[in-house]
């Protein structure tokens, strides 16, 4: 809270006046020798209690009265201090021009985009500004980018800066830009301030309308917000709002299921919508048609692509260009592994055949004919538990311990660093597993402790619904398969122990709700612990299709671990840990739609996470290629920047919505220079309100005082 006339706060001391008068009058009592004291004593005794109460209440009311008046005259208000200087409605003003640079401004009528119209309108306004008028220039998305942050009278600089501005694929939200504009205007409190926002008035941009109203209220009368609507009604828009990579292993030469979601942001159904898929910005390698997308609805379409060789790639799903082409394609980046190396440590030895602990595991991880194993991307190394002494865990992506009695050799020493470094491990229980040894060496690491072997009189299955964990969430869809036909005769019961640093999650539970499969994240890596065998000794799970599916999801999870880092949102930088060999190497980027030589960005620097490649904040959605100097791979990396799907909804804000936050007018259809006065939340409101309250208190005091007098 601030005060327009803080000096009046000294008047708060006037609240002490009634107290002082009270104390002074006590000192200045007139003495009288009095005969009829007996009546006096009786009266005082009779009235003392309520007299004291009344007096205290009156005293409080009088203090409050003085305090309120002082407070009112101090002119309190919330937020930034408005100008105390008289505001002139004539003469030069300070302008802040805000141009909406969100993705929706790329909407075009075939001749000009709304962005170009906005630039033209802003340029015309700058040209028409009276001499002496100052102006600043901002570009608004869901953030704010100042082009000319300080008001200047040099209009040519403003116009040049305006011409150099580019639209982005960011979402729109104007509160940050308007707040910045009021802050700029607040530096010149003696001048009028006019904020002019050039926008297509997309409803998304006004999602924080109450915040805008609050900002303008704080700015006071002196600052006016004008919304200059650009373009007319929005055109129908189709957009790819999501691309999902569904399961399947992301390995070179393998087939990958993916799904595109297409949204129809118009009032009519979209019929026979062709959808295309392409890899690494190459020409489309597939096309499908969605028969119908309901108005304001969306539809999904699935593709299967054959993955290219080892490395980082992007898949792009697109629809035919429309008025807003920027959202007609969406890419996702992912990593393809040439080989996925799995180390299977078999408690009984890999050669034990069907009865072996890892027979089903090995066959499920590589579900191909023996002749095709050599070409299959999953390369399995199976060793008996007794030969783990010379193993290097870092050579593998996944380590499976199937009924391994004890954690000896490399398993005891290297497992934790392997997991922390991004590796994955799957531990399967079995009759040979030394529970005490695991609980001692593994329990603190995994947050899971085994109990004694349980033989179940009545076999139990897995949970049959409500699969929450991402690893098994796909099974919520019955089409994906089922865990319902799995039965367990024996198991090692597990107790999950969560601590501040270790937070195990139950992936799958038995039918009796006890944990069956638990996942513990350690750094970049994951550890899965399964409470039963990987063969048919204790259960029939390996015989069920879901066994293969679950292992496949685990492999995909390991390979796709960095999906989030590879797919940042527009406006975010691309930050990615890279190989040590790339430290201090220069890197450059090829942006979406950019041809020719990539643009130099910077140098890979050391960080807490090792060598880190970090780009500038991104401004365009789509597939990016990263080139690292002297690297073998061309490009070395690919990543895809994701735009906000909400930005594809071009619906404009309704006048009612604007009225709701006190900005009135007809922005969409209104005149080109519609003025939306700021909400009046200025100090005079508080002054009047406080004065009114003070008057009410004064009236109350008078009435109460009179009432007390009459009562006495």
């Amino acid at each position, binding site marked *: 809270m601030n005060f327009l006339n803080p000096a009046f706060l000294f008047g708060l001391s006037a609240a002490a006046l009634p107290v002082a008068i009270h104390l002074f*009058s*006590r000192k*200045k*009592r*007139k*003495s*009288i*020798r*009095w*005969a*009829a*004291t*007996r*009546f*006096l*004593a*009786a*009266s*005082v005794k*009779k*009235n003392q209690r309520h*007299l004291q109460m009344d*007096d205290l209440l009156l005293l409080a009311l009088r203090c409050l009265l003085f305090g309120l008046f002082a407070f009112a005259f101090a002119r309190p208000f919330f937020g930034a201090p408005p100008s105390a200087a008289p505001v002139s409605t004539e003469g030069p003003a300070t302008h802040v021009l805000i141009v909406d640079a969100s993705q929706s401004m790329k909407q075009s009528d075939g001749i000009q985009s709304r962005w170009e119209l906005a630039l033209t309108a802003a340029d015309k306004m700058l040209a028409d500004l009276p001499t002496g008028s100052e102006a600043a220039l901002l570009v608004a998305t869901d953030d704010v980018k100042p082009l000319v942050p300080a008001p200047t009278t040099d209009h040519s600089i403003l116009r040049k800066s305006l011409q150099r501005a580019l639209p982005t694929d960011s979402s729109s939200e104007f509160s940050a830009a308007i707040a910045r504009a009021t802050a700029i205007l607040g530096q010149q409190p003696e001048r009028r301030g006019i904020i002019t926002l050039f926008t297509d008035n997309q409803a998304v941009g006004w999602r924080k309308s109450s915040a805008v109203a609050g900002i303008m209220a704080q700015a006071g009368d002196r600052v006016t917000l004008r919304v200059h609507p650009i373009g007319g009604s929005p055109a129908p828009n189709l957009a790819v709002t999501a691309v999902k990579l569904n399961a399947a292993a992301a390995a070179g030469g393998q087939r990958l299921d993916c799904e595109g979601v297409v949204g129809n942001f118009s009032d009519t159904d979209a019929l026979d919508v062709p959808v295309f898929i392409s890899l690494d910005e190459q020409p489309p390698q597939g096309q499908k048609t969605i028969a119908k997308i309901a108005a304001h609805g969306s539809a999904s379409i699935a593709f299967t692509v054959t993955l290219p060789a080892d490395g980082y790639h992007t898949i792009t799903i697109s629809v035919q260009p429309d008025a807003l082409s920027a959202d007609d394609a969406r890419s996702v980046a992912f990593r393809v592994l040439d080989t996925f190396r799995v180390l299977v440590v078999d408690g009984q030895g890999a050669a034990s055949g069907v009865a072996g602990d890892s027979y089903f595991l090995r066959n499920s991880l590589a579900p191909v004919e023996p002749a095709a194993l050599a070409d299959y991307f999953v390369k399995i190394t199976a060793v008996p538990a007794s030969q783990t002494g010379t193993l290097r865990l870092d050579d593998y992506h996944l380590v499976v311990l199937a009924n391994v009695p004890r954690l000896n050799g490399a398993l005891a020493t290297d497992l934790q660093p392997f997991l922390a470094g991004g590796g994955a491990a799957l531990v399967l229980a079995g009759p040979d597993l030394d529970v005490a040894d695991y609980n001692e060496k593994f329990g603190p690491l995994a947050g899971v402790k085994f109990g004694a072997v349980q033989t179940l009189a009545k076999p139990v299955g897995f949970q049959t619904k409500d699969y929450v964990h991402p690893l098994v969430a796909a099974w919520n869809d019955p089409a994906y398969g089922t865990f319902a036909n799995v039965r367990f005769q024996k198991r090692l019961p597990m107790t999950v122990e969560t601590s501040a640093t270790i937070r195990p999650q139950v992936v799958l539970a038995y039918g009796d709700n006890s944990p069956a499969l638990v996942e513990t994240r350690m750094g970049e890596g994951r550890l899965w612990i399964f409470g039963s065998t990987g063969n048919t000794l204790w259960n029939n799970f390996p015989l069920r299709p879901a066994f293969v599916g679950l292992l496949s999801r685990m492999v995909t999870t390991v390979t796709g671990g960095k999906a989030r880092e590879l797919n940042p949102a527009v406006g975010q930088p691309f930050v990615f840990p890279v190989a040590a060999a790339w430290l201090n190497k220069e890197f450059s980027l090829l942006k979406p739609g950019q041809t020719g030589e990539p643009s130099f960005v910077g140098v890979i620097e050391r960080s807490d996470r090792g060598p880190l490649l970090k780009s500038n904040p991104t401004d365009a959605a789509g597939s990016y290629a990263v080139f690292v100097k002297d690297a073998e791979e061309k490009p070395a990396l690919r990543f895809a920047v994701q735009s906000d799907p909400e930005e594809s909804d071009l619906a404009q804000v309704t006048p009612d919505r604007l009225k709701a936050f006190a900005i009135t007018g007809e922005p969409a259809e209104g005149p080109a220079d519609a003025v939306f006065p700021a909400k009046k939340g200025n100090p005079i409101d508080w002054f009047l309100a406080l004065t009114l309250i003070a008057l009410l208190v004064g009236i109350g005091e008078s009435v109460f005082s009179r009432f*007390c*007098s009459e*009562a*006495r």
Partner: protein
Amino acid sequence: MAASFSSSLLDASAISRGEALGIMARKVVEGYIVGEHRSPFRGFAIEFAQHREYTPGDDTRHIDWKVLGRSDRYYIKQYEQDTNFVAQLIVDASESMDYGSGAISKFQFAQNLAACLSYLILMQRDAVALEICSGAARSHFPRTDNLGKFRDLSALLANATASGPTTIGPALQDLAARSRSKGLVFVFSDFFSDEEAVQRGMQHLSFTGQEIVLFHIMDPAEMDFPFRGAHEFIGLEGEETIATSPEDIRKSYLDEVKNFRRRILEICERTDAHYVFVNTAEPLAEVLGAYLAFRHRTTAR
């Protein structure tokens, strides 16, 4: 008390005050009886004065049987009082009587009133006795029907000072114990004392056949409580000092005073006493005149 009385007699100013009081009393009384030429204390005494028609409630002993025999009508015989009439005057000289918001205190008013009545009674050749109660001490002027003693009586009255607590109740009881013949008892007090004791004393007096006239003297400030602003009231009879804002308690105070007057009036009604309320703001002549006129009215039937 005797010593102080003697000394006060020798005190020139006291004598002067006494003379002034006597002269004032004479002036008031003589002014009143001009044209009357009859005792205002007319009642059922010795010397026949007139007949009047019997009305229910009259004492049948006073019916004139001869007139009844002659005219077959009931008449009551009325007599002039004679000098065996004794008026006992009791003046409260407690410290509370010393209060006066105006030019005159309650005690001064009581002094003047008592002096006037004494003179009036002596003028009729009736007898007067005076007792001034000041706390436990009492000054007594013995019964006299000698007008020449009026000077001494008024000197005693004039030289008395108000001090000590109000002891009017016990004084009335003592008087009742001493009374041997019927007569009039005039009590001058504010009655700021034990009301029970006052009632007992008056009952006792009433039982002995005394006709009691009670002059309840109060100052106008005591009745109106006109003070404004913070005040500190110091009790005249040693009560606790009370600091208050008079406006805040005026209503309650006035209720207390009203109730007090009602209680004193009830005591009078219970003891067949005549209650005369005296506001010291009113002129003495008016008060005395009003009382005597009332008495004349009630005894002239």
